[in-house]
């Protein structure tokens, strides 16, 4: 049986260097070979942590993308100090995998079971805090990948970038710097048992998973339909930033410590994952073809507006045509994804009872270093 290596650390205090956000947590889940699932979502995976609805979990995540089997040499060559908790986690994972003769696909920390969550419920995951665990990230691409120009990529390629959390920037080159938009690319629950193991590459409209959606950052809620008892949640694939589309198949894959709060909403009957931010409702559509994703996203956004506002077909269709933005989240096959941004400000009666209050205007403030 798996063991939860770290016990619950109650009421620990995490403060960002910006001093604007702080979040407590009830449990701390580290990322080890025994507290992570490698490359799939499944109902069969036993939880490594069981929590109550409303509890907050500090979750360590790492990315192995671009890290060779001898990580110490790699870090030495890159001039990156290994005196870092995330890098030690990566070294330990690689060394354990070697001992056990395993190939590790993308690590998803967890699973976490939430007491009382049953099929037909919604598991709300609030992102309270995201903090970079190391100041580097790796982007890569390869021929035969799944992006729009994968056939034109002549050879595998990767690049290590420095992350500067204090300045909210990733350093692309001496002349180009990119604003940080930290998020966990993968957050999902187990699919129904009869679906077996779902590869974690493509997201689905059932279990969530690999959304690669930068809007799910500090201050956002992800609503996942519960398919199995306890929900069986895992997360990983930490991203430093992201262009909508993610056309190379990867972004700056990094290492993030997230504090997430889990809330069970009973018997909601939610069928498709939804997202809420301080400013927007977000509906999604997933399909191998973007045309199909567009259609699925339209139908799902209409379902949302019917529930929320009682809009009939023409009213919601017209509303979405005029007042919502359809964005390409993932131009990656299979599982291409479109997300629909619906501004809350359109609704005059909207009472701002949302849980998150931005500390100050601007996305930079959300990028908790």
């Amino acid at each position, binding site marked *: 049986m798996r063991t939860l290596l770290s016990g619950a650390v109650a009421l620990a205090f995490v403060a960002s260097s910006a001093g604007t956000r702080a979040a407590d947590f009830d449990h701390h889940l580290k990322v080890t070979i025994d507290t992570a699932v490698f490359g799939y979502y499944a109902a069969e995976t036993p939880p490594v942590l069981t929590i109550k609805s409303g509890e907050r979990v500090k979750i360590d995540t790492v990315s192995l993308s671009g890290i060779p089997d001898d990580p110490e040499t790699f870090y030495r060559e890159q001039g990156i100090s290994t005196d870092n908790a995330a890098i030690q986690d990566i070294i330990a994972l690689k060394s354990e995998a070697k001992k056990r003769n395993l190939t590790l696909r993308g690590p998803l920390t967890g699973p976490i079971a939430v007491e009382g969550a049953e099929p037909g419920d919604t598991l709300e995951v609030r992102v309270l805090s995201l903090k970079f665990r190391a100041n580097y990230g790796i*982007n890569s*691409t390869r021929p035969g990948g799944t*992006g*729009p*120009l994968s056939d034109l*990529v002549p050879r595998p*390629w990767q*690049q290590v970038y420095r992350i500067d959390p204090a300045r909210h920037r*990733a350093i*692309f*080159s001496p*002349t*180009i*710097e*990119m*604003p940080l938009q930290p998020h966990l690319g993968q957050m999902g629950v187990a699919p129904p048992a009869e679906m077996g193991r779902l590869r974690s590459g493509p997201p689905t409209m059932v279990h969530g998973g690999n959304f690669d959606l930068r809007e799910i950052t500090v201050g956002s809620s992800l609503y996942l339909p519960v398919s199995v008892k306890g929900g069986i949640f895992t997360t990983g694939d930490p991203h430093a*930033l*992201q*262009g*909508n*589309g*993610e*056309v*190379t*198949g*990867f*972004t*700056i894959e990094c290492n993030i410590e997230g504090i997430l709060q889990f809330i069970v909403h009973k018997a909601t009957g939610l069928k498709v994952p939804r997202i809420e931010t301080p400013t927007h409702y977000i509906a999604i559509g997933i399909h191998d*073809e*973007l*045309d199909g994703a*567009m*259609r699925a996203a*339209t*139908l799902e956004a209409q379902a949302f507006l019917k529930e929320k*506002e009682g809009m009939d*077909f*023409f*009213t919601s*269709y*017209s*509303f*979405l*045509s*005029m*007042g*919502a*933005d*359809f*964005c*390409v989240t993932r*131009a990656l096959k299979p599982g*291409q994804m479109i997300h*629909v941004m619906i*501004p809350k*400000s*359109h*609704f*005059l*009666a909207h009472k701002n009872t949302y849980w998150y209050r931005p500390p100050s205007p601007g996305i930079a403030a959300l990028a908790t270093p």
Partner: protein
Amino acid sequence: MKFSRLALSAAAVCTAAFAAAEVKYDHYLPSSYTNVTWGVYSAEYAPALKIKSGETVKIDIANSMGVNRANPRKFFTDNNIPLDHPVARDLIAICEKTPNHPSGVRGALLTGPVYVEGAEPGDTLEVRTLDVRFRVPYGVNSTSPGAGHPLADLVPRPWTHKFDLDLERSVALFKPGEIELPLAPFMGQMGVAPPAATGAFGAGPPTAAHGGNFDFQELCRGGTLFLPVNVAGAHFFTGNGHALQGNGEITNPSLEVNLTGYFQFILHKKKPLAMSYMETPTHYVFVGIHDSLDEAVRQATKQCVDFLQKKEGLDYYDAYALTSLTTDFAVVRALLPAQMVSALIPKNIFKTKTDYWYRGPTPTKY
């Protein structure tokens, strides 16, 4: 809200909502029935106006959405709009007097052509949108079965709805008192005549060669469109006013309105352009146009990679990576044929700042 009361003060209201004073212009092109085509881009029309590079033009556009061409007065009387209102006057005259193109090609009304002296094939025409103002305080949205949009097969019948605009507060009253959408007006169509050999282009699908029906909210005040010149004089047309627009435009029409645009035209000699592109105060914008959204994304991606390689001297991989890391892809037109995807490269990632002509407030966006 009563239309007639607002209509009388529409000009003043627009002024309050959008700018302190009307933009200065060198020429005025009204949407009189001799200055419009029923949705045709072609070099065969005599110029409605001849200008020099660098000059500014005020252009009225008429939008016939909701108006029955066989009985144009009905829409205005039904909606309490005086028949002598400039927009009613223009549209009634157009419905009665402007002929269809003999080929049968037709589409949304376009004002033009504007002939730019000295423009030759192989040049680029830069069109700056200096300002956009409303001519009337209403807009019309509609949809119909089988029209190439994502849920066309689920639409049971044609549907049209007129929405009032509160120009003072700069919102469309989607559901008065409950749901309002911020106004962000732009011309859905901006394009030039296609090469003479290809004949007349309809105002339906946009193309790489002539621009046209981009339906793109980024081309509002402060936006710049770069178009390839295909024929002497370029022959620029514009129309299809939109009060606002979500990326996707899934019902097919947007909130169709009658607008006045203020444009500056700048000719760049001997700069051949394979594909139109745009620039805004905050982004470089590339588009892909194809029946398949997948292919449209591919086209747009290629252009971003090319642009970043040239602009920053990056190799292929760095340019591809930078596209993935920073560029936002959105579905602008989920409409068959010729679906369109935009790719927005943010300017703020470049440490070296480049000058841009627009200095005004950030255009209304939600």
